[in-house]
């Protein structure tokens, strides 16, 4: 991990939400050739400069969270992961 003092300095007022999760269970295999329907990387989610959709979701403590409840004074890091189960 980076130096904690520097980390705290740089991350001041930013909420780091949903950090890295470990995902296992699936063997790593290449996607089948000719697979269709994959969304190009640049088109996954809203673009830089756009606003994220309004959302509300419950966390592991049962609390409903929104952008307003999650963000720090300088922003929020929001991570989407595939699954915490498998």
């Amino acid at each position, binding site marked *: *991990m*980076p*130096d904690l003092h*520097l*980390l705290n300095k*740089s*991350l001041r007022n930013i909420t*780091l*939400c*949903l*950090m*890295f*999760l*470990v*995902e*296992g*269970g*699936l063997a*790593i*295999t290449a*996607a*089948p050739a000719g*697979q269709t*329907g*994959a*969304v190009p*990387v640049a*088109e*996954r*989610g*809203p*673009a*830089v400069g756009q*606003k*994220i*959709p*309004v*959302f509300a*979701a419950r*966390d*592991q*403590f*049962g609390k409903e*969270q929104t*952008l307003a409840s999650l*963000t*720090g*004074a300088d*922003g*929020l*890091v*929001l*991570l*989407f*992961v*595939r*699954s*915490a*189960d*498998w």
Partner: protein
Amino acid sequence: MTYDNPEILKEFAQRFHITYPLLADPQSEVIGRFGLIDPDNSPANLLEDSKTGLAYPGFFFVAPDGTIKEKYFGEKYYDRFTANNVLVKLFPELLEVSATHAADAHIRVDLKQSDRNAVIGSRVTLAATVHLPEGVHVYAPGVKGYKPVQLTLQTEGLPLKDSFYPPSHPLTFGELDETVPVYTGAFEIRQDVLVVLDKNLREEYMRFEGGRDSGTFVPIHGLLSYQACTDKVCYPPATLALEWMVRVHQMDNERSPEGIRDHRQK
């Protein structure tokens, strides 16, 4: 945020002592609103009994008003930015010097990396911070007629991703009436590399039976080629051997208890 139900996230958070919010989107409703549903439901992409509506994995850095300032998504599900990688992209000063460094007569190089530990499928940032003595310059990419500084990795199966060379500055030789792009002082070259399961690593991992392991040290070798000059003399082109070490871990294979798992609708 994941498409798991809240019970799965609660159990997962307890198992890994996670206290930051894990958000449940069991209907993939928010994931859909973000435009992040992965349509590939083939067995190569998700377990056959798992429900559909997976999210493409990736990060958003969002301002308090909801404006996206940066986003980081990999091509495949086994191409994922580590949290540290995202942090050092947002704050490069957080890159810390590794145990190793290299030097020769004209330059000294500190080696840095976003992660010393990474699971398979992680995208890790490696960096070389070059320190030049007073009065010495090296040539930057794009130079004509001189050898530009270049970082090359011999990764043997570890795919290379984004590379970064900092902006150079122009240097004019009055006598030659020539202006060239150079670096002086200290500058940093960064290169992302993807830790994937190649044949050699696979053999290592077959020794583990799942769960968290102690990891395998994987050296990543690189060459820094450059030509150092002063305003009076140019030294012969030189190459410096570099080595980073990443401890690569198997992914966690432990699933949630059967009673709380989500299953695909038949």
